[in-house]
């Protein structure tokens, strides 16, 4: 199974684009001086206090493998745990003086070792969104319909989901709202146009905004429509899913597809997910060595917009907030820079003293569906996030992606119902 070798790992991403220039994965890992500054910021280290599951340990493990001092074939199980315990949150990179991208290292290792993070059935289903969007659309709609009929509840009750290795259905069922209207119907009911003539902005909805949180997609379309004519591009893969859970070839293919479509349209692209925004900003590194596509990816990155561009000067939906408000930094790869800094600044301006500043030790919800990767790790991490919220008696937590809002709301409902999570775009109402 482990056809891994140092040369193969090198073949994967030619270079990582770091703030200090392009570096090979090995070079990047070797820049770790083992100072340990990252340890306390890592959610998995916070849980078990073991070097093995810390950013420093992960970088050293990668280096040991690349230097052929550790044979991955004989340590399959532990290495899988080391890689998959990483939530890819990038908090370690934030605290690191050398800005070492440990999350990227772990993704490289995951790909090199052919490790599958998501359950097979879930991976197959979700990868259809990029390859066969129509089929994917039908499957999701059918699934939601069956859920409405109570079939999912029945499957859970009878334990069949567990029996067939479909536990992810239980988790998805827990996270999703009880009643989910279809986006088209919702937009029609609210009289929001999603296909205007002569559009000047593309809205690329995330999976959750398109299928599970139509009010989020509607809110974004409505607020951006004040200055623009946004057009909805449903089921267009950004390549992020493939990058995190699949392989690099598929991810590159998806990004190329997106670049081509964007070039044709020649319009800026708006996303509601901070993860997609960050990923596409880093997309040029996917094409390192291929100047033409690297240039195109750079252009795409320049054309990316996040919902922060359309946030109001006054919080329309929260006009009288007197209770503490905070930001959940749940995001992939990075916990600083744009758009996180902008959102923080906006929230600070809007809510003034009621905005609760985060400490570097404060926990966040694991991002981008990490709960489906390792629920046993994600659960206590979410608990830590709720603990932080409860300690500051925060009433509203803003998130930077719909999925994080869903995840956090699930935990809050059970553990601290005084608070609720909202996507930051909901400031628009």
């Amino acid at each position, binding site marked *: 199974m482990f056809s891994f070798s140092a040369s193969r790992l090198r073949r994967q991403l030619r270079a990582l684009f770091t703030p200090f220039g392009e570096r090979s994965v090995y070079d990047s890992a070797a820049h770790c001086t*083992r100072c*340990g*500054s990252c*340890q306390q910021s890592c959610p998995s280290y916070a849980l078990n206090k073991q070097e*093995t599951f810390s950013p420093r340990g992960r970088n050293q493990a990668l280096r*040991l493998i690349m230097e052929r001092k550790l044979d991955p074939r004989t340590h399959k199980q532990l290495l899988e745990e080391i890689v998959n315990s990483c939530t890819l949150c990038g908090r370690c990179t934030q605290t690191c003086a*050398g800005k070492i991208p440990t999350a990227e290292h772990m993704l490289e290792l995951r790909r090199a070792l052919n490790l599958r993070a998501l359950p097979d059935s879930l991976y197959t289903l979700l990868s259809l969104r990029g390859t066969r969007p129509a089929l994917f659309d039908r499957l999701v709609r059918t699934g939601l319909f069956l859920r409405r009929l109570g079939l999912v509840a029945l499957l859970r009750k009878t334990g069949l989901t567990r029996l067939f290795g479909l536990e992810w259905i239980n988790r998805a069922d827990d996270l999703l709202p009880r009643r989910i209207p279809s986006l088209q119907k919702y937009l029609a009911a609210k009289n929001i146009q999603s296909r205007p003539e002569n559009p000047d902005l593309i809205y690329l909805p995330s999976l959750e905004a398109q299928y599970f949180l139509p009010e989020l997609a509607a809110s974004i379309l409505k607020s951006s429509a004040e200055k623009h004519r946004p057009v909805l591009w449903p089921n267009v893969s950004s390549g992020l899913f493939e990058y995190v859970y699949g392989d690099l070839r598929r991810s590159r293919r998806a990004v190329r597809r997106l670049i081509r479509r964007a070039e044709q349209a020649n319009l800026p692209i708006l996303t509601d997910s901070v993860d997609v925004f960050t990923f596409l900003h880093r997309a040029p590194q996917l094409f390192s060595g291929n100047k033409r596509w690297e240039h195109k990816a750079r252009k795409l990155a320049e054309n990316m917009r996040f919902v922060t561009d359309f946030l109001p000067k006054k919080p329309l939906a929260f006009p009288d907030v007197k209770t503490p408000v905070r930001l959940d930094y749940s995001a992939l790869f990075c916990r600083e820079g744009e758009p996180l800094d902008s959102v923080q600044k906006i929230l600070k301006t809007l809510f003034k003293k009621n905005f609760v500043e985060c400490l570097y030790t404060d926990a966040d919800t694991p991002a981008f569906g990490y709960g489906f990767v390792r629920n046993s790790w994600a659960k206590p991490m979410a608990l830590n996030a709720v603990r932080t919220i409860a300690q500051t008696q925060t009433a509203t937590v803003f998130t930077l992606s719909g999925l994080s809002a869903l995840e956090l709301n699930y935990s809050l409902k059970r553990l601290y119902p005084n608070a609720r999570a909202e996507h930051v775009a909901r400031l628009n109402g």
Partner: protein
Amino acid sequence: MKIPHTALTELRSLLGKGNVLTDEASLLLHAYDCSLSRTRPDLLLNIRREEDVAPAVKILSAYKIPFVPRAAATNHAGSCAALNGGAILNLAGLNRILQINTQEQFAVVQPGVITADLQNALNKLGFFYAPDPASERVCTLGGNLAQNASGARCMKYGGTPDHVLEADAVLPTGQTVHFSRDGGGPDFIGLLAGSEGTLGVITRLKVQILPLVKHVKTFLVTFPSLEDSVQTVTDLTARGIIPRCVEAMDQTTLQTVEDFSHAGYPIDAQALLILELDGTPAQIEREEKELAEICRKNRAQQFLPAKTEAERNKLWLGRRAAYAAIARLAPNVMVGDGTVPRSELPRALKKVRQILQERNIRASLLFHAGDGNFHPHFIFDERNPADALRVKRALNEVLKACVDCGGTISGEHGVGVEKRADMAYQYDKPTLDLFARMKRAADPLNLANPLKIIPVNYAEKARPQAPADEAVQTLAQRIRLRREAGVPGAVTGANTRLKTAAKETFSTRALTKIADIDLTNYTATVQTGITLDDLQHALSARGVYCALPGGKGTLGGAFSSGAYPHFYAHTLGLEALLPDGSLVRYGGKFMKNSAGYHLTRLFAGARGTLGIVTQLTFKIFATPVTVPAAENAPAKPNALWHALKHELDPNGLFPILPEDNHV
């Protein structure tokens, strides 16, 4: 080494199966710390409960398995590398703050508590813990004590050992010992400081906490030369102004830091100081005026006080980003740590720059100007063995330059394995012998973090011993004669404190020389037979003060009897005669020393049971300072004191331990 199967079974039944790991990957991931050292252990034990430490150590001791305590492993000295293989005791899980008592101003913590976590918990209550190592966000309190860590605030508030009131430790034999500052006898907490886990495993600490200082003012001052900046600190001390911290950079570092952080530092300055004053607003105002005057006198180019919190943060921005500024330049950064007497800083830094230039090494120099402690940050690539070797050699030369300037090879990072060989350059053979005997006393099987601190085969490499004072030589001769004759005797000074009716005595009354009163570094070196009245008289004639009150007793009596435990923090160095007549020398006119076991703390309060202190170097002040006297409680010997006595004085030449006396 191969771990016996039965040992593994016993450890698994004690700690749980998942906490006893022997797989290659886990072991390799516990083979390093922040230094270049890398040694694979044979066993990893994750300790989850405080009470498991002693039985685990007992099992390891029974099977003669070496062990290394480890928590955050952020040290720069290689202290966490398991050189003899064996077990790593991962104490990071012992991370609970057990009690915070603001009424009596203490906190009780487990050794794995992160220093910043304690600070955050205390800040909410209006208190703070004074030691502030630069890595406080990641380093642990147990590690701080084991490595004798300190930080920028050290000049005013002291280092970690000065803020630990009580400590629980498990000796390498598995015996649990409680050390307390109030317990009398040697300052074992001070002795644990910098012992790097070689004397035992720290399992609990009671630390002193202080009310939060509400008023702090920060200043940025630039100078046309390093000498001017150092003279400024000396003048401040002379006026009795002790800043909260004095951080400094030289021109090359300034440039690197400014390029990265854009903090607005003037890059044409040859030296930059960031000073911070704290206290009441009136006190700060008064001190600020004096500071401005002193800076002007010393040709300061710019004197920029921070008027707001934002300005204060801006002044600190560059200093805080210094490591990051350097870390981005190359794959690896080796952080050196040398300390010299403050007056020697310009000479030492000049030597360091010369070494770097000769070896063509890029490095930045940051230093705590207040205590003469500097940190060269060497930039290199550890994957290139020649590069790594070049840097290692340069570091050794830098450390030797420190010793040549009358300093030490470590101010706050410890010795570990990285600087082990340099210990022979700093200490003579009798002193290194004493370190080795102390280790043997506490750890007869050499299991606790073996092969650290003490150099291997040092007999020929050790620094040649400097000739002793004539009176000391005479006393040493008497000791040797008595030893051969097997006639024990009491150690006496003026016979005012530990009164003895013994006929056979070793008197220190002939040792009355004042070797040095240094008004640049503010230290005094004085023989211990001098009376406190005479000492006060001599010091006041020079317009300075020491922290001891006057009296008819001797300096040695005040130090050895345990009457003034707060004075221990003021002692910087000593000379002492051991029961075998050998003379050991430790410390000097520098403010910090993490090289070797703290001998000043070993002999402090030991009541002459382990040796005769013949000379002390201690801090002096421009304004009167007095330490409180301790209650005259009889010292109760603990297992470590017994072991040390047995090792150093097996024939009982010097006074027996108080408890035995009582019996």
